[in-house]
């Protein structure tokens, strides 16, 4: 009997590890709350009363551990005009940033300046009251309303300054294109002809795989405007169309029609394999985000790559790239140095910042008209400035649980596995949107 009892005890303990995992973040929160506020209020009280000339030190929380050097240069640029304000860039590991930031904010502490995740996740922090509204900050009118949407709370106020865009376009291998006498396609038909030529010459036209869901929504977001143009999503937002509309269904069909141009066994291929195929010149094109440029350049410095925008299906259509805000900076409502933090927000709206950001982060700036030194980054930036359309799944449809974006990814995966038809994919997406989305007339 004793054995049975101890066996049961072992069982209980083992089974509880799952529950413990669920709430461990909140238990640490409790221990943190007892120590941290005391520490911050103790050290900051004298600083507040001191003269304005006195040096003040602010911390910036972020998930971009890989950008430490870039931010050192950005901070140096800021200090040229604000010598009294010291900034410390303190990033946390990407996957742990949300949890550690939330824990700190719940206990009333956290960094003075917060690197804000774009769209729904960032808005959640604003709605919880952790952020300072920034509508009055000088220079906010630099940004378009679509751009500011990345850091807008549900009350319509803006809580963050967007810094750089991510953008999706088609990367291609210049050497392979030259070898088979191919040009950057100007229409969708030309793109398909290009793909045919490559296939005949035993080169995989597209480095693509459907194993990882995010690749699917990324690709659909980039290619779909070639079918439904740039105003279809606006119609969905206003209620004049929905995801069951023929335009959207044909954008899903377009994804399916590309199957002959994908690599063998593409259902088992993920991002790493896609990158390998493109970098080792087995595949000639890849629909991909700008961030891969730096990664691919490192993987094969001799690779001659270039980009072109997604060409339109209709003759009178326009080529497009898809953009969304990569992140914003916000001010912690509990910061003891709000004035200084707001100075940094102002700096983020200036061309001086935009130029450093483009060249150091190698991503398109949210501030219009910024030039980049690297020719490919310059091309990506110019496209993002002139012919971009928002990445709808991220910008407008990243809410719901599971999110409408995740539903799109999951059902596209089902389509490539022949479990769903394009019409069923559209239905699933609409069903998910119906759970939370209300069109604004």
């Amino acid at each position, binding site marked *: *009997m004793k054995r049975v009892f101890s066996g049961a005890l072992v069982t209980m303990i083992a089974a509880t590890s799952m529950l413990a995992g669920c709430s461990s973040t909140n238990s640490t929160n409790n221990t943190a709350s007892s120590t941290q506020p005391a520490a911050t209020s103790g050290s900051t009280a004298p600083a507040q009363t001191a003269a304005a000339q006195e040096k003040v030190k602010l911390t910036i929380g972020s998930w971009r551990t890989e950008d430490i050097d870039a931010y050192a240069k950005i901070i140096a640029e800021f200090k040229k005009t604000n010598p009294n304000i010291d900034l410390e860039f303190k990033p946390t590991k990407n996957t742990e940033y949300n949890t550690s930031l939330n824990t700190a904010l719940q206990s009333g502490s956290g960094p003075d300046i917060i690197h804000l995740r774009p769209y729904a996740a960032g808005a959640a922090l604003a709605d919880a009251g952790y952020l300072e509204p920034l509508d009055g900050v000088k220079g906010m009118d630099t940004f378009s309303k679509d751009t500011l949407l990345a850091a807008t709370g549900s009350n319509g106020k803006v809580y963050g300054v967007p810094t750089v865009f991510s953008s999706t376009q088609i990367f291609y291998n210049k050497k392979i294109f030259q070898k088979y006498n191919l040009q950057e396609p100007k229409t969708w038909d030309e793109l398909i002809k290009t793909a045919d030529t490559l296939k005949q010459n035993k080169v995989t036209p597209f480095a693509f795989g459907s*194993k990882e869901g*995010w690749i699917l929504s990324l690709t659909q977001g980039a290619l779909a405007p070639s079918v439904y143009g740039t105003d279809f999503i606006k119609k969905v937002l206003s209620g004049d169309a929905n995801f069951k509309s023929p335009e959207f269904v044909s954008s899903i069909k377009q994804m399916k029609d590309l199957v002959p141009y994908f690599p063998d066994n593409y259902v088992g291929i993920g991002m790493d394999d896609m990158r390998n195929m493109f970098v080792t010149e087995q595949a000639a094109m890849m629909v991909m985000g700008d961030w891969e440029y730096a990664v691919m350049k490192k993987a094969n410095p001799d690779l001659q790559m270039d980009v072109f925008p997604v060409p339109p299906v209709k003759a009178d259509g326009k080529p497009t790239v898809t953009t969304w805000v990569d992140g914003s900076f916000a001010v912690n409502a509990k910061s003891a140095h709000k004035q200084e933090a707001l100075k940094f927000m102002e700096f983020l709206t200036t061309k001086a910042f935009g130029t450093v950001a483009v060249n150091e982060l190698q991503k398109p700036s949210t501030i219009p008209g910024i030039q980049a030194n690297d020719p490919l980054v310059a091309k990506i930036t110019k496209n993002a400035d002139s012919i971009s359309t928002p990445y709808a799944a991220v910008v407008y449809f990243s809410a719901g649980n599971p999110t409408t974006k995740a539903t799109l990814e999951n059902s596209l995966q089902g389509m490539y596995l022949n479990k769903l038809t394009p019409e069923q994919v559209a239905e699933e997406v609409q069903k998910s949107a119906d759970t939370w989305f209300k069109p604004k007339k």
Partner: protein
Amino acid sequence: MNNTAKTPGWKKGAVHLFPIPALAVYILFVIYPIAAAFGYSFYDWKGLVRGDFIGLGNFVSLFTKEPFNHLFWNAFGHNLYYFLIEMVVQNVLAFLLAYLVFSKLKGSGFLKMAYFLPRLLSVIVVGFLWKLMLNPNNGVVNVLLKKLGLVSWAKPWLGDPATALTSITMVNSWFGIGFSMLIFLAGLQAISTEVIEAARIDGVKGFRMIRSIILPMMNQSLIIITVFTFIHAFEAFELVYAMEGSQGEPYNATDTLAVFFYRIAFGGSSGGDSVALGLGSALAVVLFIIIATISALFLYFTRNQSAQH
């Protein structure tokens, strides 16, 4: 004996205070979070902020609302499949290996170590290692199959819903076989050699020996292995996460309850997805109840067998 007689009464009592530091840590990091998770599951969560008390609302949505109800039973079925494969493949093979080692084969010491070796790797390492080996176009498994002329066998193992979960459970069996083998070996070694000798003199041999003498004598190990395997299968997370990500790809074909829980409670791995702490806590509570009750029932109904020895 003399010493204890001289020890004053209060000092004897003080002994019971010594576990307090360890107990405090245990309460803070295990008991409290469990209690908290139970509590959270009764509240409506708006992102990070705790909302109203909604009683069993989270549990009701978990079992009645699309797509949660569908995903729950989908994941539950996968956990069950995981358990069956582990029992049939991992544990049966482990028993045979244990018997092989037990029967004092030449080099059995080396074999014992070799079978246990995968267990020393981290689960995440095992996951990534096999992900590379199962890569559809340049993984060693498919390259080998193609070289052997079995081109049609070279499938995208982890990308095809028909093979993805089985592939993961096989990797898991490869990983876990050493541990099961050790428990079986301990069970075998606990059987007194006199019983086996007596049976042999009575003319019992081969399979009959295993079925009628050895298996009944190691009931205790069988019970432990079954319970461990059950708990492990229903907590299956790391391998699935390492090999198929937090979405249980492809198309939810490898989703388990723990992965599903991670996705709704913490918003998956991208960091940008929405979180539903209340619903996640409710799922964790359900998972706890499943594991605890089934394990307890199993142990209760097998208590007589274990009491015999």
